[in-house]
């Protein structure tokens, strides 16, 4: 009984029309939450103390680290969606990983650019080909490849299946990024927040970092919901144009 209830709830959400109705209801709340969280996060980012060694440059962390977390979380969301495409043929799974790819590319670009801007004053270089930086750069290229692949194929369901396989193969890069700083000698510092034994970062920096991370995450889910809605609309427009062309063909 509970099984069938869970399955019916799941298939209810799989219906794109229901998803559109849900998106219309929750998007204003998500957008408002994003604005409020960014306002608090940015206020804390510029009012808390600087680091005793790095000085004010520690403030770059409040955009760099959340963007880097999101670059990996977005790929994880895409990998879960890819499983949805390949295993359950979930109608929204194809839409979900296609809509997430440009968002992931954008957040990875922010992580790379702010990392470079932080590296110059702290390490004395804009870029080094060490394990962490290179693996994040590979992630960026993978996002671009997935966007190109989705755009290169006309049939969306075929494009979704091919992309899903590629996403799952590429998922091997995520643990490599996470543990690159432990497995190899890198200029990049090891983990100081999400690590065994708890965070080693000072409370002064932890709060603005956490709030900015939540703000970035809510922003991601807001944009992801909007992009999924756009993709559903795009597919409806294409389907209706095909139908109109068939009807015109019959009349001729």
């Amino acid at each position, binding site marked *: 009984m509970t099984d069938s209830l869970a399955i019916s709830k799941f298939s209810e959400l799989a219906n794109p029309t229901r998803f559109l109705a849900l998106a219309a209801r929750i998007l204003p709340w998500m957008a408002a939450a994003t604005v409020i969280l960014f306002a608090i996060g940015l206020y804390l980012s510029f009012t808390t103390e600087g680091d005793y060694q790095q000085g*004010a440059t520690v*403030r770059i962390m409040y955009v760099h680290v959340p963007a880097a977390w999101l670059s990996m979380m977005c790929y994880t969301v895409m990998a879960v969606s890819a499983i949805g495409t390949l295993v359950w043929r979930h109608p929204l799974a194809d839409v979900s990983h296609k809509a997430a790819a440009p968002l992931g590319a954008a957040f990875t670009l922010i992580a790379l650019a*702010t990392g470079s801007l932080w590296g110059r004053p702290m390490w004395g270089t804009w870029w080094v080909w060490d394990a962490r930086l290179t693996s994040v750069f590979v992630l960026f290229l993978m996002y671009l490849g997935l966007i190109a692949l989705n755009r290169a194929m006309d049939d969306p369901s075929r494009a979704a299946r091919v992309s899903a396989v590629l996403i799952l193969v590429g998922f091997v890069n995520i643990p490599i990024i996470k543990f690159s700083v432990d497995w190899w000698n890198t200029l990049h510092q090891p983990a100081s927040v999400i690590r065994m034994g708890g965070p080693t970062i000072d409370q002064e920096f932890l709060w603005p970092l956490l709030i900015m991370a939540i703000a970035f995450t809510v922003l991601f889910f807001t944009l992801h919901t909007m992009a999924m809605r756009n993709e559903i609309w795009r597919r409806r427009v294409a389907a209706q144009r095909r139908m109109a062309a068939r009807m015109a063909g019959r009349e001729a």
Partner: protein
Amino acid sequence: MSHTFYIAMSYAVSAAVILCLIAWTWLDGRARRQELAELEASGIRRRSAQAKDDAA
């Protein structure tokens, strides 16, 4: 260059990328909504919508 330059550039780059992303997503949605409205106005509707109208 001063540290302030690197901090300002980091926030400026992040803001520019995020604002472009928001604008692109929003404009894409607006264009798709317009296309759907135009199709609807020319009498082309989804089969499910037609079925509902026929039943009513």
